[in-house]
Every structure is written in C-alpha cells, then in structure tokens.
C-alpha cells in the first residue's frame, strides 16, 4: 500500500540517490571498521584482521546471488533492472549522454547509408532469372585490350552463330523516337533490341506481352514495349494503352506490353522496339554501336565463354582483315559492366565512413571509461549489497547497448538523409540506386552496427572495472590505484582517434587536389556563356540536302538573335553524351608510320563553320570551315593538335589527305587546317586524335546547336533560342536545353559528391578527435591539480604550466599524425583510381592534413591548458 509517508520517502530516495549512496558507503565502511576492531580484540593483528574482514565482506554477494537465482525469473528481471539503472545513469549525465548519442548517431547513420548503397550496387542479386549466368560481351581493340567498345552488327551475328557458350545472346542499339503529345513534341529514349533481349532477363511483362518472333520480320507491323516508369509518368498508368497505336517517329506503332521497372534499359531507354535490320546492316562490321548481353549455357564458366568468344574474334580477324584485324572480344559479368566503375569509389567511401564510426566508438569508449571510473564507488556499493562480478559486467554492457540503441535510433534519421543524398547524386547508370530507400537491409545494417558499437564501447569500461579492487575502493576512497593504467589506455585511444582522423583528412585532401586540378585544367574551349540545344533532325529532314540546309538556316537565324555573339552546330559536343555515330576508321596519307596503327579508329564530328568560334576553339594552322565547303566542292577536313602530334610528328599536315566513311562511303578529304585540342571525354582524359568535317559535306541529323551569349548569360537566351527554332520547324522536338558550364559541372558531379562526402566524414572525424583530445587533457589536468599546485608553489609561472599542458597535447597530436600518415600511405593507393594529377602519397596533401590536425588539436588543448594555469596552489594543496 502506498501511504503518503511511504510516497514521500520514495520520492526522497529518488531525488537524493547520490546522497543515499554516500550514506550507505559510510555505513558499510563503519561496519567493516567494527569487524576489524572485533577481530583485533579476538587476537588478530590489524593487517590480517582487515584482510579477513574484507574477504568475508566480499563473500557476501555470492550467497545473496545464489538465493536470488533460485527464483527463476532472474535473467529478465535483471535485464530490466539493468536497463532501469542504465537509463538513470544516462539521464543523470545529460551532457555525457548527449555527446555520446550524437557521436554514435553520426557514425552509425552515415555507415548505414553507405553500407546499404554498397549492398544495393555490389551485392544484392539482380532480379533476373538465372542472374548469375547473365553476362555482357564487348569488342576490344587488341592494341589496347582494356578498353571495351560497342559491337558491330555483323560481328554480333557471327558470335551468335558460332559460339557454343551462350543459351541466349541479345543486342541493343540506341535510338530515339519522337512523339507529339498534349504538351508538344518530345523525344523518348529507345533501345532497338534483338529477339533474345527479353528472354535473357526472363521477366514477365507487367501487362501485355514481350516481343514475339514475328515482330522481328522485315515487313512486320511496327510494335513497341514501354517501361513502367514511362507508362506511369506519361500515360497515367492506363492499362488500356496496351494494344493501342501511338504515332512514334511519324510511324504508327502498336504498344504490345509494359515491362516491369527492373527490365534492363540500355542507353536509358524508355521504350523498346524490335531491331529491324537496314539494308546491308547485317554485313556492317566497321563501326560498333550495339551493347550485347547474353545468358551462359548451364555449366559454362565465364572464362570458358571468354576463350570461346576470343577464338571466334581471332577467326573473324583472319576472315575480314580490313575491318577486324585488331578486333578482339571479351566477356564481362553483368555486375562488372553496370557497377564496375562504382566499385572503387563506393568501397573507399565505405572505408572512410567506417573510420568515422570507429572514431565515434573510440570516443564514446573513452567517455565511458572516464565515466565508469567516476562511478567506481557506485559499482563497489552495488557489489557490497549483492551484485556479482558478472552482473556488473552485464550492467556496463547494458549501458553501452542502451547508449548505442538510442544512438542507432537517432542514426536512422541521419541514414535517411544520407540515403536521399546518395539517391540524388548517384550516377544515372546505377539504376539500383534510383529507388534507394531506408529499407529492411538498411535497418538490419543499422542494428548490426549498433550491437557491434555497443560491444566496442562497452569493452573498455568492463576491462577497467575488472581491474578495480572493489572492496578496497570502498574503504580507501575514490582516488587510488589503476588510474595510471587507465590514463595510458585513454591516451592510446586518443592517439588512434587522431591517426584515423588524419587518414580521412588525407583522403579528403587528395580528392580536393584532384578536383581543383581538374577545375583548372585547360579544357581547350570556353564553356562560359554557351547554350546548347539538341535536335535529331533525321525524320523531319530525310535527305542530306535538307539536313545541310536546316543546319545552315538554324545557325544563321540563331546568330541573328539579339544577344547572341556566335552560333554553330556540331554532331559531337565535348563532355556531352554521344547523340549519334562519332567514330570512324581513318586512313591517313603522308603520315609518319605508326607500327600497327595504320588505320586507327578515332572521333569524327561534323561541324558548321562558326562552331569553333562559338566554343572558342582556336584554329592553330591553315583555315577553318567556310560556307564554300559545300556538298559539291572539294571534300575537306580539320584535324586536331593531338592528331598532328601522333601521325605527323608535329610537322605541317595541311594538304595531306585522310580517308574515311562518315555519312558516306569512304572518301578522301584534304586537311585544310589544325584546331586546338579539346578535353572531349572528360576533364581527366587527355585529348585524343580527332577529325572534323564540314556539316554540309556530311549532313548528319544528330545536331547540337550551340550559341554564345554576348552578355555571358546563356540562360537568358533560352526562350528566344527555343522560339527561333520552333519558328523554323514547329513539329520537331527540341531536347532540354543546357549550358556548356552545366556539362562541365556534370562531368565533375560525381567527384564533387565524393569530395563532399569525404569532406563531411573528415570534418566529423576531426571534430570527434578534437573532443577526444580535449576530454583526455582536461581530465589529466584535473587529476594533476595537486602536482600543478606544487609546481606553482615552488615558483613555476602560469606560462610554464600552460606550455606543459600544450606540450603534452602536442605529443599526442604528433603521435597521431605519425601513425596516421603511415596508415594513410598504406591505404591511399586504393583510391588511386579516383585521383587525377596527384599521387596517393602527395607530400603537400599529407603536410596540409597534418597541419590541420595539429592546429585543431592545439585549439582543443588550449582550454585545459588555460584552466591548468589558473590553478590556485593554496586551494589545490589544501584539497588534497
């Protein structure tokens, strides 16, 4: 029954727990003193009297434990009590708890987000039937076999016919289909696929059907299949759409089915259509534009398939030396072809973030260690009133578990935000991350991390508590023994924190150097002020003459728009995705012989005369294109500086002839000028040899229309450019407009994101390490108050004391820097693939990282140093 008096006493007990603990402590001490006195009276000497009294006293707990064990519900009851005690300890030490929980939340949250991303991209099985047997097959250039290139139709057909390693082999070709919807004309990315394409994946259509053999006949009714995403976003998830006819690319096509989200979307396709071969396409061997995927026959290994396909490629090289002389082939797992490029950055970032978690655990462990020593007397009392040693260990572990559970719960919020960021910044090729969310896997990872963290942070206090002679600490008061060992341990922990933080700082520094080098890289063109509008004019301008005329008119009209300084057109824009064929095999007359490289494949682009001026690509020798370079006149070409360097040993190439087929049968063209090199494929890629032809002489329908703003503000021109082009042709869809600066930004986007993550991780690590070193130095100066008092009493100045503390902190920081540099040198080579222009052991980066860490450590130690110098010797000595 809860009488008012009882209620009061209970409340008092709750509110004055500490005082009651102290009273109990005093009372027990009195008891032991009385025992000792009695034993002395009975004839023992004081030493053995005390020892035997303590021994008997210590024995108490076991009897009591045994009595309670008999009750049966013990484990659960104990656990609940542990949780209660832990919760009480946590609420009592609010600051301590808040720091620990926040620290763990950051560590667990960030690691969960990246761990889940790694699982999704690198581990989670693909949702296809026999996913482990699905591979991709590529052509290689035997002179540079590491580079995988797309496959030509004739090679694909021969592979398929001659190879015995595959059940199924399918190809996909990039295509675009225009559609006039309620909001005007637009263009859908499309993949033209061969008959095995859907069988390879083994997916059931969401509605309708996949393609049938009949759909691939030359005279078949045109059909398409649609992605679930397009069906939902553009066609309102209308199931009546299947069977209906859409006018796509001016041709009526029947929608036969909608495929589920997981279906492969080569080239970002929103639609799939059966591949109907163009005349002679079955014999086209020179240019590759297909992506090939296949399913291995049961029991065939990837190595066997690779040998099989390489042998076929070798046969083809003998049979068709003109085109296949240096063409090899290779087989790659589906995962490697999708996620191969993401593996290194993902694993490096996961490594970095687990360092943050590690530092977080070390930090909390150190906090707990200090806390458990402060609570030594509480633990001793608990033993005195009947808790066994194992019970205390469980108690401490329960506290760690509770701490990390709360940290984990808070960490889920951080993981949620992290996952959203990863989803937003993921490269488009990694479609597994498009629907990335805080799912069961993430929760599982978070819980596992919470348990591991709990053990990691609990182990130190437990180890320390095992070394405390409990009964003695009751008798002798709080300030004895074991603390030197504890101090050493906690210094080691802080040095390891600093070392790990340094490793992350080095990583972030290397990324920062890479990005700044890339940003300052001479691109070969001026991106600022250029607006890009892309069109595919094929269907609207069916003949070469039409397309040439369209490009001429469009660029002329755009050039006359007020605010436009120059306007041009190219079929291949630097840093942009390819929109059409942009490579050809080029035979060069009058070149310096390059062994084994007599007819190299290189980039070929069509351009109008003003293109070079618009992008400010310099004409370095000879002349640029002119309006007189028309269909009927002498075929001409421009080459870039890299071309001249490689094939003309920097001699003058003007007047020499290059022969290649581009929008025509192979044709000899006269080199009339040399243009500057452009970083076309990425700011990190050295310029490769390339050739330009006048658009009028090679009128492709794939066009990037570029305009340079006189005022340097391309976005303002957007509407006018659009209006001008619509006035010229209202039916043809315009792609989304972009700027060259945006393309430059995009090319750095992934690295920026990686740097952002690395920066955030290392900043967190630095902050945690600063808290760590601050805490250790602060405790050290408190414990040494007496010593400092003595020093000051015998004449040390405040400055001497400050310097002493700073020096001690500095020793920790320098030890951390030395250890961290060693670890960084071992680990940084794993990120070599993410770096550019800087080696993984770049001295400048290491020095910078060390400087930042040292400065932070000194800042963190300044407060304890200042406090130490303010010690009042008289008071410090009296307190002792």
């Amino acid at each position: 029954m809860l009488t008012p008096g009882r209620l009061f006493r209970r409340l008092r007990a709750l509110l004055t727990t500490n005082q009651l603990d102290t009273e109990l402590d005093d009372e027990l001490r009195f008891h032991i003193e009385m025992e000792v006195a009695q034993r002395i009276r009975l004839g023992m000497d004081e030493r053995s009297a005390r020892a035997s009294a303590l021994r008997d006293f210590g024995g108490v707990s076991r009897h009591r434990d045994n009595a309670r064990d008999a009750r049966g519900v013990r484990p659960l009851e104990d656990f609940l009590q542990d949780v209660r005690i832990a919760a009480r300890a946590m609420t009592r030490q609010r600051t301590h708890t808040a720091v620990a929980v926040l620290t763990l939340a950051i560590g667990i949250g960030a690691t969960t987000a990246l761990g889940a991303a790694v699982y999704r991209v690198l581990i989670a099985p693909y949702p296809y039937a026999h996913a482990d047997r699905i591979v991709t097959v590529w052509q290689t250039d035997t002179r540079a076999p590491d580079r995988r290139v797309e496959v030509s139709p004739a090679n694909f057909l021969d592979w398929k016919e001659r190879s015995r390693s595959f059940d199924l082999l399918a190809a996909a070709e990039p295509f675009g289909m225009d559609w006039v919807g309620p909001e005007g004309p637009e263009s859908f990315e499309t993949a033209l696929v061969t008959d095995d394409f859907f069988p390879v994946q083994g997916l059931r259509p969401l509605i309708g059907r996949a393609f049938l053999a009949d759909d691939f006949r030359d005279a078949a009714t045109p059909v398409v299949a649609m992605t679930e995403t397009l069906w939902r976003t553009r066609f309102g998830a209308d199931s009546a759409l299947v069977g209906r006819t859409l006018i796509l690319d001016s041709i009526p096509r029947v929608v036969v089915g909608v495929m589920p989200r997981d279906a492969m979307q080569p080239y970002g396709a929103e639609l799939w259509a059966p591949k109907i071969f163009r005349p002679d396409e079955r014999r086209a061997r020179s240019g590759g534009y297909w992506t090939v995927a296949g399913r291995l026959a049961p029991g065939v290994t990837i190595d066997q398939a690779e040998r099989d396909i390489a042998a076929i490629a070798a046969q083809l090289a003998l049979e068709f030396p003109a085109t296949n002389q240096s063409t090899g082939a290779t087989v790659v797992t589906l995962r490697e072809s999708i996620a191969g490029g993401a593996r290194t950055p993902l694993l490096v970032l996961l490594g970095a973030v687990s360092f943050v978690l590690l530092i977080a655990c070390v930090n909390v462990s150190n906090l707990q260690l200090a806390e458990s020593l402060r609570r030594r007397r509480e633990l001793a009392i608990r033993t005195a009133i009947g808790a066994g040693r194992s019970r205390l260990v469980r108690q401490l572990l329960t506290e760690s578990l509770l701490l990390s559970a709360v940290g984990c719960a808070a960490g889920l919020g951080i993981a949620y935000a992290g996952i959203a960021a990863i989803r937003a910044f993921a490269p488009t090729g990694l479609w597994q991350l498009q629907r990335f969310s805080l799912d069961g896997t993430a929760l599982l990872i978070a819980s596992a991390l919470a348990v591991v963290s709990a053990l990691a942070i609990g182990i130190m206090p437990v180890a320390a508590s095992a070394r405390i002679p409990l009964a003695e600490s009751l008798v002798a008061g709080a300030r004895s023994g074991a603390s030197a060992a504890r101090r050493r341990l906690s210094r080691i922990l802080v040095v390891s924190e600093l070392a790990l933080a340094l490793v992350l700082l080095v990583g972030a520094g290397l990324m920062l150097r890479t990005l700044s080098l890339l940003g300052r890289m001479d691109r070969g063109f001026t991106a600022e002020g250029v607006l890009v509008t892309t069109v595919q004019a094929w269907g609207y301008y069916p003949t070469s003459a039409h397309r040439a005329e369209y490009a001429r008119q469009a660029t002329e009209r755009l050039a006359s728009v007020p605010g436009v300084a120059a306007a041009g057109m190219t079929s291949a824009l630097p840093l942009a995705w390819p929109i059409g064929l942009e490579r050809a095999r080029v035979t060069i007359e009058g070149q310096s012989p390059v062994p084994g490289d007599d007819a190299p494949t290189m980039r070929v682009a069509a351009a109008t005369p003003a293109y070079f001026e618009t992008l400010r690509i310099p004409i370095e020798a000879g002349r640029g294109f002119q309006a007189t370079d028309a269909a009927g006149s002498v075929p001409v070409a421009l080459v870039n500086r890299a071309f001249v360097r490689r094939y003309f040993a920097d001699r003058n190439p003007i007047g020499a002839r290059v022969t290649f087929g581009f929008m025509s049968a192979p044709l000899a063209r006269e080199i009339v000028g040399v243009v500057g090199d452009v970083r076309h494929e990425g700011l990190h890629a050295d310029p490769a040899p390339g050739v330009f032809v006048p658009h009028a002489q090679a009128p492709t329908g794939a066009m990037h229309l570029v305009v340079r703003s006189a005022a340097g503000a391309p976005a303002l021109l957007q509407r006018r450019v659009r209006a001008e082009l619509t006035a010229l042709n209202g039916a043809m869809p315009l792609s989304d407009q972009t700027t060259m600066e945006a393309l430059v930004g995009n090319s750095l986007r992934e690295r920026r994101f990686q740097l952002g993550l690395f920066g955030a991780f290392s900043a967190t690590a630095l902050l945690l390490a600063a808290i760590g070193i601050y805490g250790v130095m602060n405790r050290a100066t408190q414990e040494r108050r007496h010593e400092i008092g003595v020093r000051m009493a015998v004449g040390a100045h405040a400055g001497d004391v400050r310097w002493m503390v700073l020096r001690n902190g500095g020793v920790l920081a320098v030890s951390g820097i030395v250890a961290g540099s060693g670890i960084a040198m071992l680990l940084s080579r794993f990120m070599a693939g993410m770096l550019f222009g800087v080696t993984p052991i770049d001295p400048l980066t290491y020095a910078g990282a060390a400087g930042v860490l040292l400065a932070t450590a000194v800042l963190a130690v300044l407060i304890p140093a200042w406090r130490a110098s303010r010690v009042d010797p008289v008071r410090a000595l009296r307190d002792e």
Partner: protein
Amino acid sequence: MITPGDRLQGTLDLLILRVLRQESTHGWGIAQQIQQISRDVLQVNQGSLYPALRRLEERGWITAAWGTSDNNRRARYYKLTAAGRKRLTDETASWQEFVLAVSRVLHTA
C-alpha cells in the same frame, strides 16, 4: 499463502525489529545481537542486512539517524517506530502460528 522465500526474508525483518525493540543500535550492532542471542546459530550476512534495513526504513517501521558509536565513530543508528512496534507484534504472532503449524505437521507425520 506464504512462500519459503518470503518467510525467510520476513524472518530477518522480524529479528531486526526484535533487536531494535530492546535498544536503538547500528547495523553492525544488530548483526552482533542476533548472533549472540541465537548463540551463534544465526549468522547475518551483511549483504542481506543492509538491504533489509533499507527496506524496513522505506516501509516506515524503523528510522535512522547518524550518531556516534561507543568507540567514537560516526555510525548510523536505527530506531523502532510506532508502526514498527505494531508490525513486530503482528509478525511475532504470525511467526509463532507458523512455527506451531510446522511442528504439528512434523509431529503427526
């Protein structure tokens, strides 16, 4: 119903209350008294004694105050309250009833 556990715990409570009816004393004194009066048959664990004292105090049957012991040390002295006195009477009756019951069973069986 009374379980053996309750009964044993109750027994220690009863003994403490009984000692304190005679004189107010500290924990060590209580343990000594019980041991002496029972002629060393009953030995009180310190590990049971102090929790029991806390329990009795919380229920309001005894009160505690700091005082000075015979040998001039600070000690916590326990004193029986009126409620404790009544409790002792009730418990003694119930204990005797219990002993009687047990001995009846032992004699007839």
